[in-house]
């Protein structure tokens, strides 16, 4: 029997279905921002290689450099909420896994900082930097990709209670990674290649908004972005199946007919992604919408993989619930006011643009 920590005696602060929805929904937002970041920083680093000889590549590099610090900021901020909810629902597994690989997990903090400052350096181009922007861009990209790798390690270890005690008994210094897990590599690649694809779509859309400002850069971003979206999207389909078949039988079966709802959600996610690729040239807005929905369905699938993997050691549907309804209402109210405030600020910012141009 695996060791599973006892649940917190306080109980869940809301019915688990609400917490699950919030977890999946906020994680979707985080992952969309992460996709923009990972796809964007990779395209920027690659454009940087040709910067010296190709002036257009240099302009593409600079345009992406302007967009990425904000993307990073949003990725971090939108990541806080799902991390909060996962601790509420799956704390027993989450804390255990993170403690077992404590140092790599903690390394995320300096890696994020390094990657983030690198992006600002690429944007601000301080004079001491000279010609070394490309190196900094690559360092940022590597730091960000490493963060993803550690995350994948923790989330896969979380799903494997049977090896926790073995890892613990082998040493408490927290220096390990969960490298032997067969799902680790396909899972990591699934997230990263997916990010290349969605990031490509975002770069394409960014290109469309620049039509009047800089036609050449606009065209370059649109072409490159669409190619990334399609090529990485195609590879993603293959990796997705690899990931699916790397899952333990018991888990995989649910998604290939064992459970109709799980199988349906996954199939819908795949179909929407393929349709998005088919319509991207003619209807990019629709492609973006379908991609967003597809990501949401995939995050839902990811959640079910977790739930099935942890059964029967951790059954979150059976956790004690002590709902805090009044505070939940306050949260929703604050969220609505907050989103309205953000909408007002963004609108004010966008509206201010023509004034400058004039």
């Amino acid at each position, binding site marked *: 029997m695996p*060791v599973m*920590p*006892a649940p*917190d005696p*306080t109980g*869940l*602060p809301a019915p688990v279905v609400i917490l699950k929805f*919030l977890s999946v929904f906020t994680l979707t937002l985080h992952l969309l921002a992460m996709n923009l970041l990972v796809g964007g920083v990779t395209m920027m680093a690659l454009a940087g290689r040709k910067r010296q000889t190709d002036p257009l590549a240099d302009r593409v590099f600079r345009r992406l450099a302007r967009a990425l*610090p*904000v993307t990073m*900021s949003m990725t*971090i*901020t*939108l990541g*806080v*909420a799902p*991390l*909060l909810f996962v*601790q*509420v629902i799956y*704390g027993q597994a989450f*804390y255990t896994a*993170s*403690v*077992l690989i*404590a140092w790599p*997990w*903690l390394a*995320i*903090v300096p890696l*994020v*900082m390094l990657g*983030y*400052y690198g992006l*600002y350096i690429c944007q*601000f181009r301080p004079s001491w930097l000279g010609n070394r922007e490309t190196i900094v861009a690559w360092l940022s990209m590597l730091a960000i990709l490493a963060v993803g790798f550690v995350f994948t390690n923790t989330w896969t270890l979380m799903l494997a209670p049977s090896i*926790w*005690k073995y890892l*613990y008994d082998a*040493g*408490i*210094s*927290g220096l390990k990674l969960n490298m032997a897990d067969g799902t680790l590599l396909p899972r990591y690649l699934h997230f990263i290649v997916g990010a290349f694809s969605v990031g490509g779509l975002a770069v394409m859309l960014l290109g469309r908004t620049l039509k009047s400002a800089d036609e050449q850069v606009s065209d370059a971003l649109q072409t490159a972005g669409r190619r990334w979206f399609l090529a990485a999207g195609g590879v993603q389909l293959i990796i997705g199946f690899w990931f699916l078949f790397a899952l333990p039988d018991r888990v995989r079966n649910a998604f290939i007919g064992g459970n109709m709802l799980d199988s349906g959600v996954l199939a819908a996610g795949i179909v929407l992604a393929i349709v998005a690729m088919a319509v991207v040239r003619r209807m990019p807005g629709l492609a973006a919408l379908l991609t967003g929905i597809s990501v949401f369905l995939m995050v839902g699938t990811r959640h079910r993989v977790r739930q099935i993997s942890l059964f029967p050691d951790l059954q979150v549907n059976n956790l004690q619930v002590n709902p*805090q309804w009044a*505070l939940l209402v*306050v*949260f929703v109210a*604050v*969220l609505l006011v*907050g989103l309205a*405030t*953000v909408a007002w*600020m*963004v609108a*004010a*910012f966008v509206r*201010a*643009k023509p*004034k*400058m141009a004039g």
Partner: protein
Amino acid sequence: MNYPIWEVPMLGGGMLIGIIAILHVFVSHFAIGGGLYLVLTEIQARKTNDPDMLDFARKHSTFFILVVLVFGAVSGVGIWWTIALVNPTAVSTLIHVFVWVWAIEWVFFLVELIAAIIYYYGWERMDPATHIKVGWIYVVSAWLSLFMINGILTFMLTPGRWIETQSVADGFFNPTMIPSAILRTAVCVALAGLYALITGTLIRNDEARARIVRWSAKWVMGGIAVLPLAGFWYVAQLPPMAREISMGGAPVVTLFAAGSILFSALVVGGAFIGPYLFPKHVHVTYAFGLAIMGLMATGVTEWVREAVRKPYIIYDYMYSNTLRVKDLGEYSMSGLLTNAKWERPTEADTKSQVRVGRRVFRAQCMACHTVNGFNGMRFAVKGWGREFLDHQILYLNELKGFMPPFIGTDEERAALVEYLLTLNDTEQESDVAAAPAEQKGGL
């Protein structure tokens, strides 16, 4: 005990949290005060039609976002990361009790961040009135974010009526919540001035530099002026034992409490003598010196705040070693290791009292103590004999008010004594880290 433990060599988990937390506090309070500083400086500059001041505010905002958005935000996540690694049981309780408070704080944080970004990129683009409005949105949401976190943080030291009622409102609006919010707000204002002195002293134009340096010095002095009164209120609300620890009960803590006052006085004195009286002649190194004094003041104050909470991590509810007060009786009867999922003795362990003792040490002591480093037991038990050690552990909480009681059976206590005795003997290999190899050999 419910969760596996993580051994942080030399520093220990507590010290690791401390280092990250102090740096974060020093930056995050600037994040709030600095926003207010930017908005008021912009308003002042526009009202007096002062292009130098406006230019300074714009440049200062670059410095601001580089410090706040990156280091401030990421180190805040870093604290969460670290406390969850060092003390997952306590974090789990805080998360379960206050999840909606945290979620509300997240909304404020999100608004704060987007406001900061739009304010920064909006300098050239937006009209002044709208730009200033965005600045105010930043200030309000940033302060509300502090207000929410402050409620959770103060709860840990003074949970108040929550202990009986388990009501989130009682826990959030606890006895030290308001004085602490005032203290922290004042610190935000003072830190805004301290950081602005760094960029302000770099202005080339003499007249402009003098104006901005003096304006910033007023922020430092004004912020610190509020501290004594709010500080008295705060201390008055502390549990009696916490007050006692800070005022003579534990000499080191008292020394640090005195350090807090001393460093704050140095900052305010330094701000008056230099930047306020002779604003034209203040060099950036002087401003850095003041900022370092400010960091020291922040560091020792936060350290004292953590220290006076001993022996609890959540006062009257959970001890520093994550054992809940209510479990005390049961664990003393049934035994600590029976309840310590990760430290149940193996068959090989049961043959050796020392190895059982090491398990007890891991489960009960390692949340705060290392073997050889900070709060190291090898140093603490130096020269102690068996009987003396046993007596110390038996009456741990009575002999040392800042320590929790020993929890476990007589056999477990005897085993712990045997293990600790090995730390006195340099010939025996007793490092906790050496346990696994030994264990494998035994199996």
